[in-house]
């Protein structure tokens, strides 16, 4: 699988390259600035791009803008955005096109190499990987009384949280140490309680949940 990587700090870029190579990814390019990233995305056509939000020369959200532009030109281009901080605002912009193949994670998540690599693969396959902190912020805003979420059981909330992060039923089942059937049952309960249409497609399911959570109250 071919990866384009954009990260301006040498230490992190180097570490990421080694981590990805150790998990059999092919590094098509590892760049340090916004313009280089734009060129690499256009010319190398990678299977997935790993992009730091903040990049030189402006040191603003150049990486994010570059990724969003590339996805407008090539809808569904898998992009995993990394940052030192997560903002719901950015998550919303990344998810806005509803095309999937999007990830938004804190850089800390590379600490858990297995989960991180799983997230990269998921995004490359058109799935979603949202940082737990984004999901917690979304949920925190919506868990008052008289909100649809208050009808969920604590276990269902847990499942919803993991589902919104983009995890598959199998992964959720493993993490919560229950059977996949149990998770499927929780999932259909959640969808019924939130009034969402059930979909067998994992990716579409995640996007529906995220859209529901992000809807203005």
């Amino acid at each position, binding site marked *: 699988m071919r990866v384009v990587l954009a990260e301006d700090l040498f230490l992190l870029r180097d570490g990421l390259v080694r981590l990805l190579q150790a998990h059999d990814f092919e590094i098509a390019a590892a760049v340090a600035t916004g313009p280089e990233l734009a060129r690499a995305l256009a010319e190398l056509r990678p299977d997935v791009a790993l992009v730091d939000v903040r990049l030189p020369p402006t040191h603003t959200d150049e990486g994010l803008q570059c990724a969003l532009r590339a996805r407008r030109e090539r809808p569904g281009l898998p992009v995993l955005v990394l940052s030192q901080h997560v903002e*719901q605002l950015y998550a919303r912009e990344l998810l806005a096109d509803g095309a999937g193949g999007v990830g938004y994670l804190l850089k*800390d998540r590379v600490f858990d190499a297995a989960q991180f690599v799983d997230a990269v693969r998921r995004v490359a396959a058109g799935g979603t990987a949202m940082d737990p902190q984004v999901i917690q*912020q979304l949920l925190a805003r919506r868990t008052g009384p008289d909100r649809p979420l208050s009808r969920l059981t604590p276990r269902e909330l847990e499942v919803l949280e993991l589902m919104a992060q983009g995890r598959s039923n199998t992964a959720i089942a493993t993490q919560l140490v229950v059977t996949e059937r149990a998770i499927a049952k929780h999932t259909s309960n959640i969808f019924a309680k939130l009034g969402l249409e059930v979909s067998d497609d994992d990716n579409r399911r995640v996007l529906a949940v995220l859209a529901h959570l992000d809807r203005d109250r």
Partner: protein
Amino acid sequence: MAGRAAAVGKAGTRALVLAAVSLAGSLTLLVATLVSLLLVPLGVGVLTTPLVLTGVRMFADRRRLLVLRWGGPPIPREYRPPTAGAGPWRRLRDLLGDPATRRDLRWLVVDMTAGFVTALLPAALLFYPLEGFALAAGLWRVFTDGTHTGYWYAFVPVSGQASALTAARLGLVFWVVAWFLTPALLSAHLRLTRAALAGRQGELAERVRVLTETRRAAVDTSAAELRRIERDLHDGAQARLVALGMDLGTVEMLLDKDPAKARELLAQARRNSAEALNELRALVHGIHPPVLAERGLGDAVRALALRLPVTTEVDVDLRGRADAPVESAAYFALSEVLTNAVKHSGADRIRVDVRHADGSLRIAVTDDGTGGAVIGTGSGLTGVERRLGTFDGVLAVHSPAGGPTRVTLEIPCALS
């Protein structure tokens, strides 16, 4: 033609508002201040005077905003910041010793007399003719049966249809005068307000004093901030990194002897490093929020709103970015105002309006809560006022009991 008519209409209406406000508001506040001062020997006045004078300042601040918004000159605000932790006597002495307080009181007298007249005149020129027309249209019958003078319209005795028509003609004359004079008269009123409300003698000296005070406040605040950051780093991330290094050392030693224990310690080390990162992130957010650096004030405010537990609508109209220090001050001031609103107002809807006009950044926060917010000791709004003071910013609070509350922040600045 239509443009001029609209301008005259607008000026007349504004003058009417000003006439009403200046007579009722200024008279009430002046009487309240005098009564409160008379009560000082009895003791009660010591407590009521600061309240009344705060009211006077809020009233004056509203007027500063109105004058600015209605095309008048900006009126500098030169109140001395309150001494932290001062008792009621000290507060009273500070307030009465502040030249700005005496100027405010002088302004109240001017406002209810000359101010009232200069506001009433343009309003009357515009609206009084309406009565003349009404008389001509038949209203005269209410006052007279046509045999005697039943009513005086200005200096025209109305005693029948013919004299009512004269009244209408006079009304027209008034309108002609209004056409040419109303906007000029209104701006004369605004200039009068500025002349009375802004310092004249020793304006520069006063300005220097205000700058010295706000500078001291700014230096104190930033020193306190640095101390807080130092403490947070020392007790937080730094300590965690020490623990991390220690754990790794132990792991190295245990690697051969007790691999299970080593793995356990490695997991702990990872948790420690994650915690250190979380603490650093929170710290960075408190120093300068990353989204502010990346996107500027507009999106930083939107991101802030998304974090609030109360539904918050944000409307931003900025063509460019203010200087980083101004953006930062505005962001943290707004953040404090929003925290206040969420904590105390009980509102379930907040509206934030950010725009730049007439050389000022203007942020208005409106909530549908219970109201009763004041700038005063112990209120978070005092800190906001101090924060804005460094930038010659103004904070105005309009919060009647029962709500709604509207807090306006204004910082003079340019966008680039």
